[in-house]
């Protein structure tokens, strides 16, 4: 009896729906990116505080290097122990979703296409040495390459959005 009551409570317990705006998230992310980059050894390279692509690359490559003896590229900040930003983001998002009752398993509709998108975005991001976040971070850091990469990204987003709009209206 107690077990069913507990189950009932877990299923219907009051959820704390914490509301966070995009603006607040942007500010906190920028501060954290600068602070870990400057004070907590997430460097070199410079402006490396948050990057989903590069930190993800460091993680997978150093796992492979230490387990099957490959010699794949790993940034200097990840040489001793790989950066765990990407792992943290997945867990943090899981905590946010479970605590607000938004966690839901949903099956993909086109897994092959999403897989290929993943491969392609990672390749382009590593080519530019940064995902959308780090390109902006490098731009804010004052790098010409950051400006170029971020400018390219904005141009890509605008083109793709207009293309999707055009295709939907046809």
């Amino acid at each position: 009896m107690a077990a069913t009551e507990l189950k009932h409570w877990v299923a219907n317990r009051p959820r704390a729906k914490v509301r966070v705006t995009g603006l607040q998230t942007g500010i906190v992310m920028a501060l954290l990116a600068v602070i870990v980059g400057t004070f907590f050894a997430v460097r070199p390279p410079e402006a490396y505080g948050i990057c989903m692509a590069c930190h993800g690359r460091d993680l997978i490559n150093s796992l492979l290097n230490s387990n099957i003896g490959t010699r794949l590229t790993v940034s200097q900040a990840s040489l001793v122990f790989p950066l765990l930003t990407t792992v943290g983001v997945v867990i943090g998002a899981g905590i946010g979703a479970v605590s607000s009752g938004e966690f839901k398993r949903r099956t993909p509709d086109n897994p092959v296409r999403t897989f290929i998108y993943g491969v392609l975005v990672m390749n382009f991001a590593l080519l530019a040495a940064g995902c959308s976040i780090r390109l902006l971070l490098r731009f804010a850091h004052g790098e010409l390459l950051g400006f170029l990469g971020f400018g390219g990204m904005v141009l890509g987003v605008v083109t793709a959005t207009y293309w999707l709009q055009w295709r939907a209206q046809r």
Partner: protein
Amino acid sequence: MTTAAVASLIVGLIIGYLGQRSRMCFVGGIRDFILVRDTFLLKGLIAFGLVAWIAFPIAEQLAGNLSTLDASLDTTTLIFTLVGGLGVGYLSVLANGCPFRQHVLAGQGIMSSVTYLAGFYVGAVIFHLVVLPLLLRIS
């Protein structure tokens, strides 16, 4: 150097939580503004840039290590960066979210994003084993 790993894990947890609560996406802001004139995510993107721009010099002064900028500015790097940025922006819109957003969605149980992440990590290995050596040979 393990400091960096622990710090990055904590940062990841915080931004993952915030990203889930705010649906933050670094390409979604521009996309939403063009499609429906919605500025919720765009504000986050602009704030990220501005705050980082102000915080970098202050943090570097406090830490006492002024960084050096732009080590290599050869044509190859310039082209790689521009093309890479274009590809990230264009494909992230088609994939329905920047890499950060995909990590958040994966943590939220969306299997489509889990598949994306599988491609993302396989992509990193492909890049260093095949794509980059090939590109460097051509250029």
